[in-house]
């Protein structure tokens, strides 16, 4: 898709096919692919990170550690870049976000430490499973719930409840299920640190489903949390030499430009068909990651 020559070559001859690609070509193609990833990620709300790592690993034969480092940095860029827009809408809840960050950041460090000690194949397989699960989550019909009326004791103590704008004015909401949500957030952090993704899907699951926070509040708060979570493992990755400037430069610039473009188009575009298409792509990438991981090709 991004580079048919390399892709076909990869299937026919296995690794070692980018011998002919020089830095200009590599940068251009990776940048273009990242642009598309960021664009689709913003349009579908799934984030660009989930496609960047498989793209680099499968299409460009970049070592998965470098791929994860580059992806993680691009995740920070999209999260921080969109913060102003999301906040202005008045949906995100900083207290919920900050409280849950104590779980995701510790999880992210744990994930990064795990990544240092497990094999590339294992990471590829876990990545594939997460891709399949994200596709499942995005295609599933979301269980709608009205705003929770009564906060649990713990949520009350932490003053997690808030209000958000609806068509009928400000709507108050309460929060429950704090321990379950906190646990899921730790898991989201581990996945983020291990795989270099934002794991927004798991974060939204934790808030929307476990803690019964309104969906709009969950997604925007998740976006704010993604950058902070990613920063927690990015430091470790940088120190371990996972962040290669030659790869990260086109990935970061591409994803950032793509996601800004996507956010602009989002208002007008019909995303349902795109969302479906993107889910199919993610399933295909997931299967390929698992296959390559199990057969030890990555």
């Amino acid at each position, binding site marked *: 898709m991004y580079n048919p020559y390399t892709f076909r070559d990869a299937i026919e001859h296995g690794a070692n096919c980018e011998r002919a690609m020089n*830095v200009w070509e590599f940068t251009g193609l990776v940048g273009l692919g990242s642009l598309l990833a960021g664009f689709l990620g913003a349009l579908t709300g799934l984030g660009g990170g989930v496609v960047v790592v498989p793209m680099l690993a499968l299409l460009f034969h970049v070592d998965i550690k470098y791929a994860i480092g580059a992806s993680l940095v691009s995740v920070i860029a999209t999260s921080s870049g969109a913060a102003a827009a999301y906040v202005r809408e008045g949906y995100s809840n900083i207290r919920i976000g900050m409280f849950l960050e104590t779980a995701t950041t510790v999880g992210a460090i744990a994930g990064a430490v795990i990544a240092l000690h497990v094999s590339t194949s294992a990471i590829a397989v876990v990545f594939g499973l997460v891709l399949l699960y994200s596709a499942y989550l995005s295609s599933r019909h979301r269980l709608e719930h009205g705003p929770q009326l009564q906060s649990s004791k713990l949520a009350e103590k932490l003053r997690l409840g808030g209000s958000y704008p609806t068509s009928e004015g400000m709507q108050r909401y309460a929060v429950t299920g704090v321990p379950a949500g906190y646990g899921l957030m730790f898991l989201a952090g581990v996945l983020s640190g291990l795989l270099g993704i934002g794991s927004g899907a798991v974060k939204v699951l934790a808030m929307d489903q476990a803690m019964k926070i309104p969906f709009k509040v969950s997604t925007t708060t998740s976006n704010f949390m993604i950058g902070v979570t990613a920063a927690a493992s990015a430091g470790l990755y940088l120190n371990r030499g996972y*962040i290669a*400037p030659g790869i990260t430069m086109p990935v*970061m610039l591409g994803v950032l430009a793509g996601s800004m473009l996507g956010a602009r188009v989002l208002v007008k575009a019909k995303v349902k068909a795109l969302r479906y298409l993107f889910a199919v792509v993610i399933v295909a990438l997931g299967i390929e990651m698992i296959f390559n991981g199990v057969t030890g090709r990555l």
Partner: protein
Amino acid sequence: MSDKTASTPAAGSWNDQRIEVIIGTLLRTGVILAAAVILFGGVLYLTRHGREVPSYNAFHGEPESLKNPVEVFHGVLGMSARAIIQLGLLLLIATPVARVAFSAAAFGIERDWMYVVITLIVLVILLYSLFASS
């Protein structure tokens, strides 16, 4: 954050919102600045190394000069293209850290001590990951 003067209880959440908008704008500025530095370093990198053949299919780990923030600064002074890109990436990684620090200050202004503590915990975790292993 200096425009946080009104402290009527009803205005609390609205001021929350307002501080957040300011923080959000600062963050976006940080990202744009980081992107500009990375772009500049990238152009330099391409003009110097564009014809070389990259090899990323085996993990070697980046050299010390690109892992350690202090070394990166030295590289930037020497106009090393890779070090300039890395400086941009450091700036980018710093934006969420700055946002957490700003939030701690904002909660402090609101005298919400519980959330000052929670936010500082997050900040310490972030700083630990940035500096502990270097």
